[in-house]
C-alpha cells in the first residue's frame, strides 16, 4: 500500500495517542464501583441467597462482583445472616483486616436488627451496625437475589457520589471547627 493510499484511509492505526479526558473523582469512583469484590463468607441462611446471587442465573460477575477469600483483597463485606455475639468479635476482626476503601452491606433482618431473635435471642447481636459501620441495609428474611443485587446497585450509587478531592466528612469537620 502506498503512502497516499494510507493517508486516504485516515493514516496508520498504531493505537498510540489515545486520550480520554475525565475528572479524577469520576475515574476513581468508576474503578471502585466497577470492581466491588465482596468477602466470601456467610453466617446463616442469607448466605445461601448470596451464593445463588453469584450463580449463573443471577450472575453477579456482570457487575464485576467477584467474591474473594481474603479480607486483604476484599472491598465489600456482606454480613449475610445472624450475627451471634461470639461471631461479632470475628466479624469485627475481619472488617479491620480489610483495606480502605471498604464498604459493608448488611443483608437480611438478622444482620439489620436481630430479626426474629430481637426479643429472646440472648446470644444474637441486635444489628451488626452496633459493631461495624454499615453502608447499605438489605431488608428481607432472607432477601431474594434480586434484592441483594439491588443493594449492590444502591452501594454503586453511594460510591458514585464520593469525592477523593473534596472529602465531605473532612469538610464538615473543618466547618465545625471554624464555627467554634
Amino acid at each position: 500500500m502506498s503512502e497516499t493510499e494510507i493517508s486516504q484511509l485516515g493514516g496508520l492505526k498504531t493505537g498510540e495517542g489515545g486520550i480520554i479526558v475525565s475528572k479524577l473523582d469520576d475515574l476513581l469512583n468508576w474503578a471502585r464501583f466497577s470492581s466491588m469484590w465482596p468477602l466470601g463468607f456467610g453466617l446463616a441462611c442469607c448466605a445461601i441467597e448470596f451464593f445463588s446471587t453469584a450463580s449463573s442465573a443471577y450472575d453477579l460477575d456482570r457487575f464485576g462482583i467477584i467474591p474473594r477469600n481474603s479480607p486483604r483483597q476484599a472491598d465489600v463485606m456482606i454480613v449475610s445472616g445472624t450475627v451471634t455475639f461470639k461471631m461479632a468479635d470475628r466479624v469485627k476482626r475481619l472488617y479491620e483486616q480489610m483495606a480502605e476503601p471498604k464498604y459493608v452491606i448488611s443483608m437480611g433482618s438478622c444482620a439489620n436488627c436481630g430479626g426474629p431473635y430481637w426479643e429472646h435471642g440472648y446470644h444474637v447481636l441486635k444489628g451488626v451496625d452496633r459493631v461495624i459501620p454499615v453502608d447499605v441495609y438489605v431488608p428481607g428474611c432472607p432477601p431474594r437475589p434480586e434484592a441483594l443485587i439491588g443493594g449492590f446497585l444502591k452501594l454503586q450509587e453511594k460510591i458514585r457520589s464520593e469525592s477523593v478531592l473534596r472529602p465531605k466528612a473532612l469538610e464538615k469537620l473543618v466547618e465545625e471547627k471554624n464555627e467554634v
Partner: protein
Amino acid sequence: MKFEQIKELIQSEYSDAILGEDENSSPNALIIKAESLHQVCEILHANENTYFDQLSCLSGIDNGAETGTMEIVYNLYSIPHNLHLMLKVKIDRSKPSMDSVSDIWKTADWHEREAFDLYGIHFNNHPDLRRILLPEDWEGFPLRKDYVEQEKYHDVIIKWKMDNN
C-alpha cells in the same frame, strides 16, 4: 428384647437402680437413680441382648427453682437389635452434677459439654468439660428458668432498643 425384659435385666444386676417408669414418653422411659446411672449404662451397652451401641441424644431439663430439680434424659439406640430406650435421671438443682458417660459413648463428650454450657450441669470424669456453643467468657447458663442475660458483652449492649444504639 421388650421393655419389661430390659427392666428385669437392670433389676437383676442392680435391684435399687430403677425408681420408676414413664409410659407417656416415647420411647418408654426408665427413671434411674442418679448414682447408679453410669453402671446401668455400662450393662445396657455391654449386654449382648441389649447392646445399646448408640447414644442418640442427651438432653437437660430445668424444672425451675420451685421444684429444685433438674433432669437429664438419655436416648439410647441399639443398631443390631433395633431397640430404643429412654433413661431419665433427676438431680439436685442447687448443685447439679452427674457422672459422665463419655467413657461408654464418645458422643456423650459433646452432648455433655452442651448440657454444661446451657444448664451448668457438671459432669464428673468428663475429659474436657468447657463451653461448646457460647463464648468462653459468657456469664450464666441461658436455658435455666431463672436466667437473666448480662447487660453487655464485650462493651456491646445485648438488649434490643428502638433507636438501636
